[in-house]
């Protein structure tokens, strides 16, 4: 075929021209087949450069354009826009990277010029096979689903709801609030956590634009940006939300208690019919089917007997409800789990009674907790007089997690402060590697703790043991540590040890990424689109992330991310229709033999198989354009738009222009 290709070789000032003989290259390019015009220019990306392209398209009737300059990641958009301005489809354009890949990596002028020619020839051969492509329009459903009702999810939900958009907030536990609801005070202001959280929770519960689905889990996600169909299982509460007034009599009268492993971190009990905490939103309790005497043995029914509403709010026959919800975007704000301290046996958690984790201590110290805020040992009675707080449990540790968990120094300082406050005269020891206090008011908070005469020992605690060796150690927990500031080993006997374990990704975060078709990193945290410039989007269009599920962070950052994700979603909703890149795969149904090899290749489940016609089809909007199926198809029935076999094979021929025919072989 004959096309009219315009080739533009950029000097980029001296960036390219110093090493590549751009004038010679342009002259050479003009002699190449299919090339209508070849020019060199000081700065192709300048308005003059772009104007030149537009003029040539109009005046010379160019059908293809090649710009040899910097990386397409810099200016592909710029030049595509220039083509479009002049009426040429933007995908009939190709760039040759002769700067980042050529002039900047070598000082050998001859080699650089030869390579430039090769790259440009490759681009010319390729572009001749380009086809015009149109972006794919997609309508955006204005409803959004937010998965996870912690502080990040709540913030995101309120932002969208207040903007006038409808939100489904799906939460696994019976109440929203997340880990923040378990905390007592928050650093550095020492605000009462529940006091700042519960008004938000109430707002969510009462907001007309928020449909709250607690005690619910997402089971399947189908569709694509703007058009997701999410299957949610609303688990049976065995309480009828239509009639329940939240009076709580059922909870009072329930005769059976179990250990509350989740909210009370195993330190306290709850009834079998329960609300996780008094300020729970929604107010409807939930029956723990596994421990309920009625479900186990058919007896009791105290909750039903004492329920004052008519009709009765207790419904033992209630079934799980399967909901199919249509949403346009999904925000994941699923939060974190705490590192399991039993994985570090040297610290004795689980074996030595008075070793506590941070969440356990939060519950102890919480006025609404199992001890009404009294700091006591595991016997729930004795007050400790000396407490050791061990930083970096499971973080900054090659054996567990290399990363720094960001918040632990701050909450360890907070604990130290709370001990000083509640037990005046207590000796408090913080064992740290570094003191990481980067936020607003954080360093000042550290100084406050110094003033409160906390003992800070710079050394990673080697072990916590109850085996006394020296006088004064009997009956205590001894923390063995190297105090690196004085260069000595120390044994510090204390009554209680608090471990500051790392924030970890949720135990099932990998399953979640498969469900929503995005990715997580080796630690299980969800992967953002760009670590610096796009922390709340994922690689999958329409799925966003916010809060601790993206990485360890404190409450202000979680709120910020929740709001950021909402802003992104709100932007899409307000546009109504978005255009997606047309770089996608397409299956020629005529050629497809139904072997289905491609079906299992697609990481986005974008290829479906039609049983009736026995052919596969790519769902265009789901396809992300990776091309793996294209390479896999044994009959070449799949075309990868803008990366077709013809295009790439031609580019290979072009790029090897100087070695294709065996010339005088240099030895």
């Amino acid at each position, binding site marked *: 075929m004959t096309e009219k290709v315009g080739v533009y070789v950029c000097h980029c000032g001296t960036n390219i021209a110093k090493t590549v003989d751009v004038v010679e290259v342009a002259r050479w390019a003009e002699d190449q087949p299919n090339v209508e015009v070849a020019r060199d220019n000081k700065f192709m990306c300048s308005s003059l450069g772009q104007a030149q392209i537009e003029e040539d398209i109009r005046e010379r009737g160019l059908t293809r354009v090649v710009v040899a300059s910097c990386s397409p990641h810099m200016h592909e958009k710029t030049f595509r826009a220039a083509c479009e301005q002049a009426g040429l489809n933007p995908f009939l354009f190709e760039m040759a990277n002769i700067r980042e890949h050529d002039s900047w990596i070598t000082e050998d002028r001859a080699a650089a010029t030869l390579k430039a020619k090769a790259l440009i020839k490759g681009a010319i051969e390729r572009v001749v096979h380009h086809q015009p492509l149109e972006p794919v329009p997609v309508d955006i459903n204005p409803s959004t689903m937010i998965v996870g009702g912690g502080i990040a999810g709540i913030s995101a939900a309120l932002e969208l709801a207040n903007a006038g958009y409808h939100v489904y907030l799906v939460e696994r536990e019976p109440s929203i609030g997340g880990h923040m609801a378990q905390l007592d005070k928050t650093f550095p202001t020492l605000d009462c956590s529940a006091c700042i959280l519960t008004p938000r929770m109430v707002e969510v519960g009462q907001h007309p634009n928020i449909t709250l689905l607690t005690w619910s889990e997402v089971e399947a996600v189908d569709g694509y940006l703007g058009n997701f169909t999410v299957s949610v299982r609303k688990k049976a509460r065995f309480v009828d939300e239509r009639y329940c007034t939240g009076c709580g009599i059922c909870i009072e009268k329930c005769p059976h208690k179990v250990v509350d492993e989740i909210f009370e971190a195993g330190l306290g009990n709850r009834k079998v019919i329960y609300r996780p905490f008094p300020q729970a939103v929604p107010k409807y309790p939930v029956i723990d089917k596994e421990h309920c005497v009625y479900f186990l043995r058919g007896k009791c029914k105290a909750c039903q007997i004492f329920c004052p509403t008519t009709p009765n709010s207790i419904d033992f026959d209630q079934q799980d409800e399967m909901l199919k919800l249509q949403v346009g975007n999904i925000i994941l704000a699923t939060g974190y789990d705490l590192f399991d301290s039993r994985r*570090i*046996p*040297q610290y004795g958690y689980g074996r030595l009674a008075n070793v506590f984790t941070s969440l356990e201590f939060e519950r102890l110290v919480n006025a609404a907790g199992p001890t009404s805020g009294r700091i006591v040992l595991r016997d729930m009675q004795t007050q400790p007089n000396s407490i050791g707080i061990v930083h970096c449990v499971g973080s900054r540790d090659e054996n567990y997690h290399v990363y720094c968990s960001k918040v632990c120094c701050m909450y360890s300082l907070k604990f130290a402060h709370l001990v000083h406050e509640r037990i005046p005269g207590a000796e408090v020891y913080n064992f740290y590697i570094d003191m990481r206090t980067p936020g607003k008011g954080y360093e000042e908070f550290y100084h406050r703790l110094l003033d409160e005469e906390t003992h800070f020992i710079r050394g990673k605690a080697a072990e916590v*043991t*109850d*085996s006394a*060796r020296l006088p004064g150690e009997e009956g205590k927990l001894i923390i063995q540590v190297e105090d690196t500031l004085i260069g000595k080993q120390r044994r510090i006997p204390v009554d209680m040890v608090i471990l500051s374990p790392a924030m970890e990704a949720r135990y099932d975060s990998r399953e979640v990424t498969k469900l929503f078709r995005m990715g997580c990193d080796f630690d299980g945290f969800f992967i953002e689109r760009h670590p610096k410039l796009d922390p709340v989007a994922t690689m999958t269009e329409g799925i966003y992330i916010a809060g601790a599920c993206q990485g360890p962070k404190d409450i202000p950052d979680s709120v910020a991310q929740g709001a950021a994700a909402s802003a992104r979603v709100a932007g899409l909703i307000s546009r109504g229709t978005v255009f997606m890149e047309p770089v996608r795969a397409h299956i020629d149904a005529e050629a497809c033999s139904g072997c289905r090899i491609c079906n299992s290749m697609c990481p986005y489940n974008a290829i479906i198989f039609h049983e009736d016609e026995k052919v596969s089809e790519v769902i265009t909007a789901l396809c992300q354009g990776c091309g793996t199926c294209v390479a896999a198809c044994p009959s070449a029935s799949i075309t990868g738009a803008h990366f077709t076999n013809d295009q790439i094979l031609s580019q290979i021929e072009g790029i090897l222009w100087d070695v294709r025919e065996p010339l005088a072989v240099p030895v």
Partner: protein
Amino acid sequence: MKQYAYFPGCSLEKIALSYHLSAIETTRKLDVELKELDDWNCCGATAYFHVDELLAYTLCARNLAMAERVGLDLVAPCSGCYKNMYFTSAHLQRDPDLAEHVNFALEEDNLHFSGKTAVRHLIEVFVNEVGLDEIKSKVSHPLRDLRVIPYYGCQILRPRKDHENVEEPQFFEGLLSAIGADPVDYPHKLRCCGGSLIITNRLAALSMVRNLLQSAVDCEAAVIATACPMCQVNLECYQQQINQEFGTKFFMPVVYFTQLVGLSFGIPPKRLGIGSELVSATPVLSWIQKSKQEN
């Protein structure tokens, strides 16, 4: 019959004779043959690697090369020998330059190290190669919940190899359970026994052993089981001196795990070297084979 090149090391045929006897007896019962490596030499113990590293590697490599020549994996009952040989093999495999130097010397003896020989601790053979099920099936006189301390000592798991659990290993407990004993949850099971410190800084070592013994008494153990001659000697032989030094009254029998396994297999105690200890183990162990036990 699985064969191993058996490396007794300097202690097994003298001070730790009971370990040697019980090792041979028990492995025979388990269809494992410990063929003593011909012309084996000392492993260098703790001292040599700090005196001349290259020569120390060569010393160990000679044993490995000889095992390679007879085509058998090497088994060492002593944790010190095991550690030295294992890490010699590992370092030589990772450092071709070092291997070249060492092989240059070994050539004199027509030997060559190429890393094909695996190095095992004797307890590994029991726990991993033979397996606990097989051992359990051979038990005719279970130890009836005798409270035994699984004293690993420090060199069997350190330095760490691969990803093994060095903080909370359970294999020794598993072995003791398989022969019917009640393994004690001993907080010092991985603590050093003092090693050769007993020679260079006796008081420091005695103090360390004292802590181990005190903890053993606190845990209400009847006997300590060891897997290393050094540990056994340090724990057993100095109890009188410790009692004198610290005013304690320790009388804790310390035996080798193979002796306990042997007793559970019904092998006569004399053949296992029981009865020759400084701190007599007879009171604690004599009842095991008293009555006929049903399997």
